[in-house]
């Protein structure tokens, strides 16, 4: 299953080699050209069926995921780490991780409950006070297996939850491997214009890959495919849930990085309404996506973001609805035909 391959592949920001190989193999047969630029973006061109069309449409999904990096060795053989991308310290404790290209297994450790004073047990420690335990007994032993600067990814395995009619999936990095899965499906379609499917790097550390990819592609418009914040847990207050799982693709009107192009936003909403595809509007001005970088490229690029709602994003494991993902493909596919 493609989503499983994408979710399980490793690719912390700046070291997207593994995930790029997986996507390259899947995209190559669907595209006319595939190339990798200096920052590691995978840029796939599918030529339009109408040579007189002349438009260039960029679809972007980021390959990178949040993770950690080894930055120091402790005398006891444990490792100091730094965060790559936005991670809440509280989700790190006692998680399984894989270190470096050798995929050395490790655990993020912290003193056991027995040693923590009662009053401190409900407090999350700073990540600086945690360490990765790879089972080494000294710094020398650890250095034989891990190098400074080694990337660390969460050791999470994709799984589908299909009992009792459920169509959910749990795994890591749905932000933005869900978007990558949508983009690969869209590459199977035929379009009148030249379609640039761009799998970007370093989104989680500041929309960096998309910035240079948009400069080289110089598109006429862009649609960014994402996995987005979902906070649909029970809430007594009648206030914005950002998105809800199962309510369909979430269309962004504005986030911290951009204000959606009105024309593209309307096209998506109209398409969904006309075809009866469930959709929702992202109900928060929060987060940022590659659209933030792309829409400011050169003389400006009309852009919009569509996302699959993902519970527990930026954590070692999250959850999405397969139906939401399929609806996202349907919606963008149909909207592309109406541009």
């Amino acid at each position, binding site marked *: 299953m493609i989503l499983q391959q994408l979710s399980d592949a490793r690719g912390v920001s700046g070291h997207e080699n593994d995930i790029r190989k997986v996507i390259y193999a899947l995209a190559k047969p669907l595209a006319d050209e595939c190339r990798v630029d200096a920052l590691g973006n995978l840029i796939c061109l599918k030529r339009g069926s109408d040579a007189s069309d002349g438009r260039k449409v960029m679809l972007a999904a980021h390959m990178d995921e949040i993770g950690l990096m080894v930055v120091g060795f402790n005398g006891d053989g444990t490792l100091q780490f730094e965060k790559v991308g936005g991670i809440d310290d509280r989700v790190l404790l006692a998680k399984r991780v894989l270190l470096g290209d050798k995929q050395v297994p490790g655990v993020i450790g912290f003193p056991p409950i027995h040693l923590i004073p009662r009053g401190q047990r409900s407090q999350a420690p700073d990540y600086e006070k945690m360490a990765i335990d790879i089972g080494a007994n000294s710094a020398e032993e650890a250095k034989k297996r891990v190098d400074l600067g080694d990337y660390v990814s969460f050791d999470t395995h994709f799984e589908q939850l299909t009992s009792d009619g459920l169509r959910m999936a749990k795994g890591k990095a749905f932000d933005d491997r869900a978007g990558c899965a949508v983009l690969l499906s869209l590459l199977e379609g035929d379009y009148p214009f030249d379609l640039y499917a761009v799998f970007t790097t370093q989104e989680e550390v500041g929309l960096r890959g998309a910035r240079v990819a948009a400069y080289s592609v110089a598109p006429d418009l862009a649609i960014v495919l994402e996995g987005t914040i979902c906070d649909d847990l029970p809430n007594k207050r*009648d*206030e914005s849930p950002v998105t809800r799982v199962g309510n369909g693709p979430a269309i962004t*009107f504005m986030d911290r990085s951009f204000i959606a192009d009105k024309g593209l936003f309307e096209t998506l909403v109209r398409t969904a309404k006309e075809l009866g595809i469930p959709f929702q509007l992202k109900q928060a*001005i*929060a987060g940022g996506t590659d659209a933030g970088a792309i829409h*400011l*490229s050169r*003389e*400006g690029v*009309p852009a919009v973001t569509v996302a699959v709602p993902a519970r527990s994003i930026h954590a070692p494991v999250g959850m999405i609805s397969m139906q939401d993902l399929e609806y996202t493909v349907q919606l963008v596919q149909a909207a592309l035909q109406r541009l």
Partner: protein
Amino acid sequence: MKTLIKSLVEAWGPSGYEGHVRTTLSGYLAGQVDEIRTDSMGNLIALKKGDGSGKRVMIASHMDEIGIAVTHVDAKGFLRFGPVGGVMPLTLVGNRVRFANGTIGVIGREDWLVERSLPTWKQVFVDVGATCAKDAPVGIGDMGAFDRAFCDLGKRLVSKAMDDRIACAIAAQAALTMDPGPNDVYFVFTVQEEVGTRGAMVSAFGIAPDVAVSVDVTPVGDTPEATPTSVVLGKGPAVKVKDSGMLAHPGVKDWMVRTAENTGIPYQLEVLVAGTTDAYSIQTSRAGVPAGCLSIPCRYVHTPSEMVDYQDVTLSVDLLSALLSNPITM
């Protein structure tokens, strides 16, 4: 000029929705400039051609104003919202906002009868007079802007959106009063400044100017018990030295100071500790652009009642006009 100012400041135009301001400005400039166009992001670009011997100059003043965006409509028809640009919670409660379709709403605060502390964004809502969600005439994603009329207080003018419509008026007026000299002058009325100087970034790329000046308001510390600032109301336009996003190019700053002194226009030097302008993103466009900023002193910036001194305004037109009419040396 006050008629132009009134129509500009009263126009509805939070970031991303600058259409009404653009229509007013393009109507005002039609037939007065050599070329006028709107780019893909919505920036209005008006060119006054020179004789070809001078520089390509970009003048940027932003059309957008701060506002709010609806994020949720609750069962009773109240709207939850988030900020568009640098809106301060201090300015919210009891104020009114207007939406694109003309709907007016009052901003309220949770537990108003008891709780008088500064609200957080989660504790405020807009009441548009609806009695249930279905009844609400606005929905998720709709943007609102402060609703306040223009007032002429004699020496001083007050309104919402003086930031930065007063500069739009100054630039538009300078386009009419400047002598066609050596320079090609691109008057750019930008979009989305309040959410990160975005319109200026793409228009600067398109124009590729030799030199750029943004025109924007700057806060003053001349009110009772205020933290003193380098700029006060009524002492003329300010030439920016720096703000928190940009160091003005010394050549541009000196050119502006020299021009003011040569033409006898009073001016102030501005050192701003917080905030920035379109010049911030123009300066780093392409291979870099020498940039500066002509600042209009303004009280109560980012509130619904922003106040400027009318003489500062007319002197700003004179200074900008003088800057653009003559050969530029830096």
